[in-house]
C-alpha cells in the first residue's frame, strides 16, 4: 500500500506537466509568434509530443488498477464548500489523454504542412495548443468543475479555430453559432453542477459518486442531474437538437475539423457520460433518453449525409451520426463499447478528415466532390489511406470500425431489437455515403478545371506521415477490443473495467450474447455494409451518376440536401423571435413604457408647475383676493379642528 502511494506521488509532477506543456506552448507562441514564425509549428508539435510521451509514461507506470487523484490548489472556498483544482488520472482519463495527445501530435504535424502558406501560421498553432490544454483539463480534472473549465475552454478554442479565417463572415457566423450552441448545453451542465453542489456538497467525482450512492436508483434528483448533464453533452457532442453547429464548424481549417470536430472535442460528451457512469446507471430513464437521442441522431445525420456534396460536410454528418451511435451505446449501458468506438472513431475519422484535407490541399481549396474525381492517380498515399478510413467507418472486417461498431450492435441486439434495426440501417447508410464520397472523389475522371488539374500534387511528408500512421491505427485499433467469439481477452474493456465496475453492478448488466448469435450479427453487419458499397458502386461507378446541381434538386432529396431545413427552422423559431423580442423590448418596453413612465412623471410635475403658475397673473387685486380667501380657509380649517 505504502509502495503504491509512493509510486503514485512520484507521478504527480509528470501528470501536472501533461497539460502544462501545451499551455506553455500556447503562451510562447502567443507572445512571440511573430519572431518564431514557422518555428512555432515545430514548437507546438514538440510540446504535444512531450505531453504524449509523459502520458505514455503515466500509462506505463500507473500501478495496477489504482488511480492518481491529487489536488493542486484550492480554487474557491466559501462556507463549507470547497472547490479545488485537482487532477484524476485513471484508466478512463488515460485512454482519452492518449488519444488527445497522440492524435493531437499527428494533427499538429500535419498542420505544419497544411497551414504552411497561411499568414496566421503561428496563431493557428497557439490556438491548437490552447485547445489541447483545455481538452486535457477536461479529461484530467478530478471534478465536474475542472471538467467544465475544459469544457468551456475547448468551446473557446473551437470558436477561435472555426473562425480562424476571420475575414470571412460566414466562417465567423459558424464560429459564433458553435460557441452559442455549446453554451446552451453548458447551461445544462452548469445547472447539473448546482444540483450536485447543493445535494452532494461537492463536485469532485469521489464525493459525487459517494453521495449519489446514498440515493435510490431512478430518483428524480439523479434523473434531473443526469438529464442536465446530457443536455451539456448534446451541445458539445452535437446531438439532436443541438447538432447544427457541427456541420457549420467545417468552416475551420481541416486539421481543426479532424482534431476538434471529429477526434476529440465532440467526444467530450461521451467521456462525460462515461465519467458519470454511476450517476447515469442510477437513472435508467435518462439512459433511455440518451439511447434514443443517439439513435435518432445517428439515423438523421446519416440520411442528411447521403445528399451532401461538400467533402467536409459529408464527414461532418458522418461524425454526428457516429456520435449518435456512441450515445446509443452509452444509453444501453455499454459504456466501454461507447468509449471503444470513441477511440476507433478518433483514428479513422481523423484519418478521413486529414485525407480530405490532403485532397482539398491538392485541389487548391476545392471542396465540392462534384468537381473532383479520379484523384487516385495523382495522390496515391492519400487515396490509399482514405480508402482504409472509409472501410473502417463502413465497418468492414478487419478494420477497427468493424469491431467497435459490432460491439455496439451486439449490445443493441441484446435487449433493444428496434434500436439494433435502426442502428443497422444507419450503418448501411454510412457505408453508402462514405463510398459515394470515396468513389466520387477518387474514381472516374477528373471533373475540375484544368488549372486545378495542373496543380494536383501529393502533400508534403509532414502531412502524409500522419495519414499513414493513422491508417495503421485505423486498421489495428480494432484488435484491442476483439469480440468474445474471437478472443477471450477484450483488452480495452478490461482496461476500463475498474471504472465501470460499480455501474455495472447497479445496472445488473445483461448476459453476453452467445457465440452463434454474435457470428450471425457480424455476418449481417458485414453483409449490409457490402450491399451498401455495392449500391454505391452501382450508382457512381457503374451508372456513372453524378449528384445533381443544387438548383436541380427536387422533392425529398431537396429536403435532405438542405438538411431538412433545420437551420431555417431554428432561425424562424429562435433567432428571429429573439431579434424581434430584442427590438420589442428596447423600443416598446424600455423606451416607450418604462422610460415614458419616468418621463411622464417628470412631465406631469412640469405641467403642474406651468399650470399653477398661471395663477400668478400679475393682478394685485387677484392676489389680495386670494390672500383673503386663504385666510378664510385657514380660519375655517381652524374651526373644524
Amino acid at each position, binding site marked *: 500500500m505504502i509502495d503504491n502511494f509512493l509510486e503514485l506521488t512520484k507521478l504527480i509532477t509528470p501528470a501536472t506537466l501533461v497539460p502544462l506543456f501545451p499551455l506553455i506552448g500556447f503562451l510562447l507562441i502567443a507572445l512571440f509568434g511573430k519572431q518564431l514564425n514557422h518555428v512555432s509549428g515545430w514548437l507546438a508539435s514538440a510540446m504535444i509530443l512531450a505531453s504524449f510521451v509523459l502520458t505514455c509514461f503515466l500509462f506505463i507506470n500507473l500501478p495496477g488498477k489504482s488511480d492518481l487523484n491529487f489536488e493542486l490548489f*484550492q*480554487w*474557491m*472556498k*466559501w*462556507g463549507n*464548500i470547497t472547490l479545488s483544482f485537482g487532477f484524476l488520472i485513471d484508466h478512463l482519463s488515460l485512454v482519452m489523454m492518449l488519444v488527445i495527445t497522440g492524435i493531437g501530435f499527428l494533427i499538429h504535424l500535419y498542420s505544419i504542412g497544411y497551414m504552411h502558406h497561411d499568414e496566421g501560421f503561428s496563431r493557428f498553432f497557439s490556438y491548437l495548443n490552447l485547445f489541447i490544454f483545455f481538452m486535457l483539463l477536461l479529461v484530467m480534472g478530478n471534478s465536474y468543475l475542472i471538467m*467544465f*473549465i475544459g*469544457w*468551456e*475552454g475547448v468551446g*473557446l478554442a473551437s*470558436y477561435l479555430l472555426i*473562425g480562424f479565417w*476571420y*475575414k*470571412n*463572415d460566414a466562417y*465567423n*457566423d459558424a464560429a*459564433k453559432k458553435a*460557441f*452559442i450552441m455549446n*453554451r*446552451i448545453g*453548458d*447551461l445544462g451542465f*452548469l*445547472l447539473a453542477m*448546482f*444540483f450536485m*453542489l*447543493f445535494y452532494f456538497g461537492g463536485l469532485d467525482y469521489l464525493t459525487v459518486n459517494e453521495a449519489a450512492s446514498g440515493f435510490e436508483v431512478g430518483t428524480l434528483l439523479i434523473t434531473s442531474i443526469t438529464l442536465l448533464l446530457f443536455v451539456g453533452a448534446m451541445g458539445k457532442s452535437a446531438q439532436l437538437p443541438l447538432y447544427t453547429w457541427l456541420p457549420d464548424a467545417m468552416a475551420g481549417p481541416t486539421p481543426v475539423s479532424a482534431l476538434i470536430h471529429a477526434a476529440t472535442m465532440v467526444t467530450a460528451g461521451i467521456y462525460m457520460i462515461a465519467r458519470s457512469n454511476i450517476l447515469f446507471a442510477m437513472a435508467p430513464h435518462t439512459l433511455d433518453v440518451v439511447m434514443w437521442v443517439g439513435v435518432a441522431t445517428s439515423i438523421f445525420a446519416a440520411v442528411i449525409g447521403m445528399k451532401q456534396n461538400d467533402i467536409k460536410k459529408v464527414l461532418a454528418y458522418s461524425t454526428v451520426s457516429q456520435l449518435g451511435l456512441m450515445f446509443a451505446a452509452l444509453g444501453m449501458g455499454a459504456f466501454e463499447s461507447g468509449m471503444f468506438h470513441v477511440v476507433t472513431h478518433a483514428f479513422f475519422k481523423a484519418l478521413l478528415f486529414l485525407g480530405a484535407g490532403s485532397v482539398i490541399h491538392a485541389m487548391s481549396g476545392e471542396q465540392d466532390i462534384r468537381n473532383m474525381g479520379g484523384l487516385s492517380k495523382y495522390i496515391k498515399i492519400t487515396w490509399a489511406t482514405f480508402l482504409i478510413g472509409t472501410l473502417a467507418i463502413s465497418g468492414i472486417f478487419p478494420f477497427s470500425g468493424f469491431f467497435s461498431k459490432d460491439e455496439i450492435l451486439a449490445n443493441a441486439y441484446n435487449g433493444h431489437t428496434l434500436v439494433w434495426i435502426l442502428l443497422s440501417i444507419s450503418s448501411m447508410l454510412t457505408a453508402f455515403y462514405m463510398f459515394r464520397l470515396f468513389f466520387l472523389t477518387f474514381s472516374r475522371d477528373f471533373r475540375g478545371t484544368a488549372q486545378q488539374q495542373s496543380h494536383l500534387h501529393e502533400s508534403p511528408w509532414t502531412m502524409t506521415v500522419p495519414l499513414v500512421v493513422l491508417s495503421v491505427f485505423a486498421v489495428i485499433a480494432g484488435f484491442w477490443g476483439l469480440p468474445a467469439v474471437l478472443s477471450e481477452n477484450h483488452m480495452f474493456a478490461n482496461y476500463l473495467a475498474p471504472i465501470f465496475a460499480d455501474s455495472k453492478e447497479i445496472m445488473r448488466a445483461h448476459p453476453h450474447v452467445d457465440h452463434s448469435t454474435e457470428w450471425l450479427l457480424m455476418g449481417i453487419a458485414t453483409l449490409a455494409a457490402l450491399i451498401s458499397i455495392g449500391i454505391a458502386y452501382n450508382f457512381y461507378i457503374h451508372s456513372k451518376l453524378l449528384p445533381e446541381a443544387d438548383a436541380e434538386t427536387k422533392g425529398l432529396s431537396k429536403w435532405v440536401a438542405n438538411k431538412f431545413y433545420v437551420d431555417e427552422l431554428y432561425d424562424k423559431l429562435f433567432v428571429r423571435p*429573439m*431579434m424581434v*423580442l*430584442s*427590438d420589442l*423590448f*428596447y423600443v416598446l*418596453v*424600455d423606451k416607450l413604457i*418604462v*422610460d415614458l*413612465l*419616468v418621463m411622464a412623471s*417628470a412631465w406631469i410635475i412640469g405641467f403642474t408647475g406651468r399650470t399653477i403658475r398661471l395663477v400668478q397673473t400679475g393682478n394685485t387685486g387677484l392676489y389680495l383676493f386670494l390672500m383673503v380667501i386663504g385666510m378664510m380657509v385657514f380660519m375655517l380649517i381652524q374651526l373644524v379642528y
Partner: protein
Amino acid sequence: MLSLTLLSIPLIAAILLLFSRGNLSRNLALVFTLVQLVFTVYAYTVFKNEGSAAFEFLANWSVKPVLNIHFAMDGMSLVMLMLTNLLLPLIVLSGYNREMERPHVFYSLMLFMQFALNGVFISFDGFIYYIFWELALIPIYFIAFNWGGENRAKVTLKFFIYTLAGSLLMLFAFLFLYNGSPAHSLDWSSLTNNPACSCNQTWLFWLFFIAFAIKIPIIPFHTWQPDTYATAPTQGTMLLSGIMLKMGTYSLLRWLIPVVPAGVAEWQYVAITLSVIGIVYASVIAIMQKDLKRLLAYSSIAHVGLISAGIFTLNLSGFQGSMVQMFAHGLNVVGLFYCADIILNRTKHHEIEGLGGIRLIAPKFATWFMIVILGSVALPLTNGFVGEFMLLFSVYQYNTWLAVFAGLTIILGAVYMLRMYQKMVLGTAIKENMVFPDLYWNEKIVLVTIGILIFVMGIFPRPIMELTEPVLKNLIK
C-alpha cells in the same frame, strides 16, 4: 488614521490639480492615484482579517443634530477600496493620448470622485455615508455633462435628478432611523444592533431599495443608465460603470441587509425577481443594440442584475459571489468601455454596423478586446466565471427555476458580445479611410493590466473571498 489618509490623498490631489495645466495635470493625477493605490495595498497588507472593522476613526461632528464621523475598514470595504484605487490609475492612464479641454478640471473632478468613492466605502456612519454618496454624484455629473457627447444636457440632468431622487428617499429613511434611535445615532453598529420596528421595515426597505436600485440599476429603475453611459465621456463611463454602480451593490450588503433585515426577508422575493428579470431583459435588449456603448450599458445592467439577485438570496454563496463579481465586473466593464473608446476614438463610429476588419490592421487590440470579452462572458479561468458561478449557484439555492432563467445570461451574454465583436472587429469590411493604429503604450498598459488581472483573479479568487468571508458570515447571522 489610515482611513483619513486614504481620504485626504485624493482630496488634496483634486485641489492641487486645479492649479496645474495640461499634461502636468495628467501626470499629477497619475502619480496621486498610484500613491493612493500604494496606500491601499499597504492597508491590505496590515489588515488583520477577523471579521471586524479596522483602522477606526471616530469623531463627533455636531451635538445637535447628532452627527458623528465613523470611518473604518473591514474586508468588504477593502475589496471595494482596492477596486476603486486600482481602477483609478488605469482610468487616468487611459486618457493619456486623448485630446480634451481643460484636463486639469477633468482630472480634478475625477480625483474628487475618488475621494467620494473612498468615503462611501469606509463610512460606518449613516450620515457621513450619505454625504459621500451624494458627493460622488456631483463630479460625475460635471464630467458627463462638460465632456459628454450629444444631448448631454438633457441626459445628464435626467441621470442626476433620477439618482438624486433615489438618494433623497434614502435620506428620508436615514432621517427616520435617526429619529427612531434613542441616541440619535446613525452609526452602523447601532443601526444593525437595534433594528427598527418591523412594522416600519417594509417601507424603510423600499426607500433604501429604490435608492440603491436606481444606482445599480435594477430594472425598472434603469432608464437613465444607457443614455448616460452613451453620452458620458468614456472615462466618465468607466467611473460610472466600473465603480459607481458598485456603490449600489456594496450598499445593499453594507446597509440594506443588516439595517432592515425584516424588510429584506419580507421583500426578498420581489428584489430577486426584479433582478433576474433584469438580467434576461437587458441581455435580450443588448442583442440588437445598434450603439456600441449602449450595448455595453445593457450588458452591464444584466451583469449587475445577477449581482443583486445573488445578494438578495441572502446566502453565503450569493454574498461571496457578489463581492467577487463586483471586483470582476469592475475590471471587465472598464476594459470593455476602454476598448469601445479606442474604437470610437479612432473611427468616430459608434454604431456596431458598418465597421469591421479592425483585426486586420490592429491585431493586438483585437486580441485584448477578445480577452476582456471572455472575462465578461464568464469563461472559466477568467474572473467573470468565479463570480457568476457562485451567484448562479446562490440563485439556484433560492429557487431552481429562477436559476434556469438567470442562467440564460451565459447564453445571451455570448450572443450579444460575440455578435458585436464579429461585426466590429472581424471581417474585411474596412470602413473607407479608416486609420486604426494599433494600441499605444498607455492603452497597452491598461488593457494588459486588466487582461492579466482577469486571469489572475479567475484562477486565484481566494484572496478576495478570504477577505470578505468573516464579514459576510456575520451578515448571514
